[in-house]
C-alpha cells in the first residue's frame, strides 16, 4: 500500500491556506443532510463535535464517561503552547514549528507540524472568547511561562488546571450545540467496533454501558478522538478508563497503525508503592526547576536521606549533563533514573525511586518562596504519600504518560479507511518520537477546532452522502461479532480476574518495551504476550451478565484489545533498529549512552496493516522529507 500523505505543494507557510482554498465546500443547505459520528469528547472530540455542529452538520457524539466534561483531557496540568509572541521574546510560528520538529527527533511530518504552529494562536483566542480563565498579568493581559526546555515563554496556563479549563471550554461549546439539538450526546456508551462498507467508514457499533444493549449508528463520516493507549502498561498517568479499543478495532478493519512503539515516559511521578497500586500520579515537571535529583553513591544504602553526607550522594543528572542538569529532557531524565535503580541505588521500599530534593533550594530561597512556587504540588504529594516534602526529599520515578503513536492519518487527518478521521492523541501525526510539554493540548484543539471542520467538509463534498443506514447487513454482522465476543468473555468462567491479567501484561510491556528496549527483550515479550493472551481467553473470570452495568466486562473488552495491541508495539519496537526520542534501543547508543538515530533507514513512519489473526502485520512506510529543517543530533550535554 502506498501511503499518500496528501501534503499540499508550495512553500511550507502557504500550504494550509492553499489547501483550504482548494478544498471542496458543502453548501450550507446541504450540511444538515450529513451526519457525522464523533467518538470521544475530550479536547479533540469535544472541540470537533461542537465546531462541526456549528457549521450545520448533525453530530452524534459518544463517550464512555457519564458526562462529556470528564474526558481524560481534564487532568492535564501544565499548559498549552501557542506562538503568540506576547512576551516579545522572539517566538514565531516558525520557531514553534522548529522546536516541535527537533523535539520529536525528526520523526514527524513537516507540513502537519507547521500547520499546528500556525493555528496555535487561534486556539488561545477561541478559548479566551469562551471564557476560559487563563492566568493573567496585573495589566489584564494573558500571562505566559516557559515549559519543557523551550527558550521562549509560550505556554498559556490556568493555575495547575489548564486541561480542565480548556476542556470545560470545549464542553461549553458542545453544551450549546447539545442544547440546540445539533449534537446528540451519548454518554456511558462505548464504541466497540467500526463498520466499513465498500471501503468507506459508515458507522459504529456501541455498547450502552447502563443497559448492556449493543446498538448501531450510521453516519456519512466517523471521527475517532479516543485518546491514547498508555494504559497498555497497566500503571500510567492516564485515567483508569483510557484504552486502545477504538483505534485497535479500526486497525483490524483496515486502518493502519503508525509508530505504536513511541510512548513517552514522564520522569517525575510518584513511585509505585505496592501491588495494589492502580495508577501513577504525575508531579509537575516544573519542580525540576528547583529540586535536585540524586541517589546514594553506593548500592544498597539503606540510610535515611538526611544521614547520607553530601560526598556519598550522586547527583547523576548534574554529573552527566552539566549544561541541562536536572532539567534534561524527559526521555533522558527517565532513562537515567532507571539506570541508577538498575545499579541497586534506587531508594524507597521498592528500590524503584530517586530523590527530588528541595533542601538546597529551601536553604537558598527560604521555605516561603518554595511554598509560594510549589505549595499546591507539595500539598498533593503529602496527601498521596503522607510525607512532608519540606522536611524530606520527595521520591519520584518515571511512569508511562503519553503515546505519540496512533492511527496513521494523512494531512487531512483521514486514516487509510476513507471517511474515518482520527484526531488528538489517537492519531500519530505531530509529535514524532518525543512529545514536548504543552503540545498535546495544542494538537487536540488544533485538530478539533481548526482542521477537522475543513477537511471533513472536503471529504463530504467529494464523496456525498454514504446512503447507507443501519439496516445494511454489515451492521448486523458486526453487531453479531460484538455479541459473540461479549458472550465469550462472560462464559469462560476461569479463575483469574481481568485486572490481574492487565497487571501481568503491564509488567511485560514495562520491562521489555518500556523506557529502553533491546532485541532479546522484545523477542522475549513477543513470546510471552501470546501465551498470556491464550491464558486470558481460557482462564479469565468475568462475573455478571451482558445486559447490565458490568464494569468487569467493560475492562475485559479493553484488556483483550491491549493483549493484542501490546504485541504490535513490540513488533514495531523490534523493527525500528535505531534509537530516537523516547524510543531507546540499547543496541543503538553512543559510548556515553546517548541515542543514535539511523536517518538513512528510519527517517520515516512505520505504519502497520492488519493481515489477519494468525498472520504478522505487514509494514508500510511513509518517508519523511525534511526540506525546511536540517536533520541534526539532539544534544543536551
Amino acid at each position, binding site marked *: 500500500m502506498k501511503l499518500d500523505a496528501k501534503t499540499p505543494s508550495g512553500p511550507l507557510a502557504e500550504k494550509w491556506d492553499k489547501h483550504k482554498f482548494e478544498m471542496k465546500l458543502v453548501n450550507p443547505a446541504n450540511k444538515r443532510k450529513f451526519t457525522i459520528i464523533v467518538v470521544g469528547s475530550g479536547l479533540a472530540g469535544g472541540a470537533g463535535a461542537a465546531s462541526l455542529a456549528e457549521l450545520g452538520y448533525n453530530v452524534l457524539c459518544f463517550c464512555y464517561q457519564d458526562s462529556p466534561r470528564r474526558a481524560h483531557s*481534564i487532568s492535564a496540568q501544565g499548559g498549552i503552547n501557542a506562538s503568540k509572541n506576547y512576551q516579545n521574546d522572539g517566538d514565531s510560528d516558525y520557531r514553534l514549528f522548529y522546536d516541535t520538529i527537533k523535539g520529536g527527533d525528526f520523526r514527524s511530518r513537516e507540513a502537519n507540524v507547521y500547520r499546528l504552529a500556525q493555528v496555535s494562536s487561534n486556539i488561545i483566542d477561541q478559548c479566551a472568547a469562551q471564557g476560559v480563565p487563563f492566568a493573567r498579568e496585573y*495589566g489584564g493581559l494573558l500571562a505566559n511561562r516557559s515549559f519543557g526546555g523551550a527558550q521562549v515563554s509560550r505556554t498559556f496556563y490556568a493555575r495547575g488546571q489548564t486541561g480542565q479549563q480548556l476542556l470545560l471550554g470545549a464542553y*461549553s461549546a458542545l453544551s450549546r450545540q447539545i442544547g440546540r439539538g445539533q449534537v446528540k450526546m451519548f454518554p456511558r456508551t462505548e464504541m466497540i467496533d467500526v463498520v466499513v462498507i465498500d471501503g468507506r467508514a459508515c458507522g459504529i457499533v456501541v455498547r450502552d454501558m447502563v443497559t448492556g444493549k449493543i446498538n448501531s449508528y450510521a453516519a456519512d463520516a466517523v471521527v475517532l478522538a479516543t485518546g491514547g493507549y498508555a494504559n497498555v502498561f497497566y500503571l500510567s498517568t492516564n485515567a483508569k478508563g483510557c484504552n486502545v479499543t477504538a483505534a485497535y478495532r479500526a486497525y483490524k478493519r483496515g486502518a493502519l497503525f503508525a509508530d505504536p512503539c513511541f510512548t513517552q515516559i514522564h520522569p517525575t511521578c510518584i513511585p509505585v508503592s505496592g501491588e495494589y*497500586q492502580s495508577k501513577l500520579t504525575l508531579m509537575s515537571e516544573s519542580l525540576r526547576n528547583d529540586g535536585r535529583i540524586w541517589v546514594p553513591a553506593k548500592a544498597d544504602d539503606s540510610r535515611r536521606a538526611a544521614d547520607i553526607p553530601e560526598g556519598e550522594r550522586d547527583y547523576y543528572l548534574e554529573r552527566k549533563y552539566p549544561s541541562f542538569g536536572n532539567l534534561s529532557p524527559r526521555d533522558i531524565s527517565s532513562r537515567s533514573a532507571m539506570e541508577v535503580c538498575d545499579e541497586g541505588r534506587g531508594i524507597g521500599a521498592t528500590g524503584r525511586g530517586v530523590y527530588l530534593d528541595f533542601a538546597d533550594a529551601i536553604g537558598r530561597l527560604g521555605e516561603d518562596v518554595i511554598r509560594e512556587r510549589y505549595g499546591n504540588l507539595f500539598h498533593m504529594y503529602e496527601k498521596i504519600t503522607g510525607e512532608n516534602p519540606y522536611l524530606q526529599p520527595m521520591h519520584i520515578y518515571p511512569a508511562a504518560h503519553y503515546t505519540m503513536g496512533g492511527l496513521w492519518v494523512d494531512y487531512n487527518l483521514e486514516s487509510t479507511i476513507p471517511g474515518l478521521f482520527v484526531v488528538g492523541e489517537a492519531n500519530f501525526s505531530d509529535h514524532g518520537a518525543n512529545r514536548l510539554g504543552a503540545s498535546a493540548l495544542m494538537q487536540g484543539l488544533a485538530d478539533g477546532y481548526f482542521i477537522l471542520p475543513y477537511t471533513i467538509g472536503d471529504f463530504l463534498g467529494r464523496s456525498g452522502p454514504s446512503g447507507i443506514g443501519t439496516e445494511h447487513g454489515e451492521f448486523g454482522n458486526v453487531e453479531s461479532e460484538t455479541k459473540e465476543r461479549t458472550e465469550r468473555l462472560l462464559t469462560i468462567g476461569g479463575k483469574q480476574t481481568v485486572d490481574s491479567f492487565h497487571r501481568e501484561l503491564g509488567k511485560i510491556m514495562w520491562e521489555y518495551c518500556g523506557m529502553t528496549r533491546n532485541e532479546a527483550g522484545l523477542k522475549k515479550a513477543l513470546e510471552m504476550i501470546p501465551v498470556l493472551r491464550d491464558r486470558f481467553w481460557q482462564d479469565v473470570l468475568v462475573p455478571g451478565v451482558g445486559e447490565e452495568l458490568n464494569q468487569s466486562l467493560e475492562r475485559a473488552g479493553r484488556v483483550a484489545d491491549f493483549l493484542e495491541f501490546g504485541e504490535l508495539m513490540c513488533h514495531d519496537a523490534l523493527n525500528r533498529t535505531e534509537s530516537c526520542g523516547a524510543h531507546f534501543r540499547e543496541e543503538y547508543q553512543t559510548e556515553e549512552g546517548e541515542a543514535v538515530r539511523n536517518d538513512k533507514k528510519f527517517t520515516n513512519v512505520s505504519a502497520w496493516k492488519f493481515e489477519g489473526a494468525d498472520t504478522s502485520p505487514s509494514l508500510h512506510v511513509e518517508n519523511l522529507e525534511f526540506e525546511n529543517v536540517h536533520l541534526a543530533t539532539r544534544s543536551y550535554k
Partner: protein
Amino acid sequence: MNLTLFVWRQKDAEDKGRMERYEAKEINSHMSFLEMLDVVNEDLTEKGQDPIAFDHDCREGICGTCSLMINGTAHGPEPGTTVCQLHMRHFKDGDAIYIEPWRARAFPVIKDLVVDRTALDRIMYSGGFVSVNTGVTVDANAIPIPKSESDKAMDASSCIGCGACVASCKNASAMLFVAAKVSQFAHLPQGKVERTSRVRSMVAQMSAEGFGGCTNFFECEAVCPKEISVDTIAKLNREYMMARIKVK
C-alpha cells in the same frame, strides 16, 4: 489493617437496595480509598460474587467522576478531598465504614454506588456557556481582564461537577454547582451579554430536574472537594434578581 465495610448494594434502578457487610482484610494504609475497594472487588470476584460497582476515572481528584458517601459525608472525612484522593491512613484498624451512593431525587441510582448525574449536564446544556462560534474571535489580548476578576472566575470554574454539594444538601439543591458556573461568567466580560438569559435558563432547568432550593444550610461548601465558596451563591442570587427585574 482490617476493616468492616457496610456497602449499599442495588442491582439496578428498580431494585430496592440494601446494606451488605464485607470484610476488607490486610489493607495497606498507603492505598487510596478506591484502591481499597479494588482489593475488596478482586476478592469478591474470585469468590464468585458480584463486585461492587462504583464510578471513577482519573483518580487524581480532577475529573469529578468518583462519588461516594462515606460514613455520611460526601467524599469522606478529609476536607477539600475527592474520594479517589482519600487515603486509608485516615482510618484505623478495626473501623467500620459505611459506603453509600449520592442520594438525591435528581440523581437516580443506576447500580450499587453508581448514580446518574446527567441532570447537571442538562443544566449546562440549557445555558452554561458563552455563545461563540469557532474561528470568529478577536485576539485574546484585545479584551484585557483585571487579574482579580480573572482569578475569581478561575476560583469558580474549578468546580469539577461531582455533585457532592447536591448529595449533602438537605434539599438536594444544585445551587453551588449552578452558582459556580454563573459566577465564572459573571466575572468575565465575555459572559456579560448573555447574563440574563443564562441565569434564568439554568435556574429554571435546575428546578425542572427536581433539585431543591437553597435554604442556606451551607453543607455544600463544607463538602465541596474544590472548596467552592458559598459567596458564589450570593453572586448567583444577585444575577438572578437582576435578571428578574429585567424581565418584568
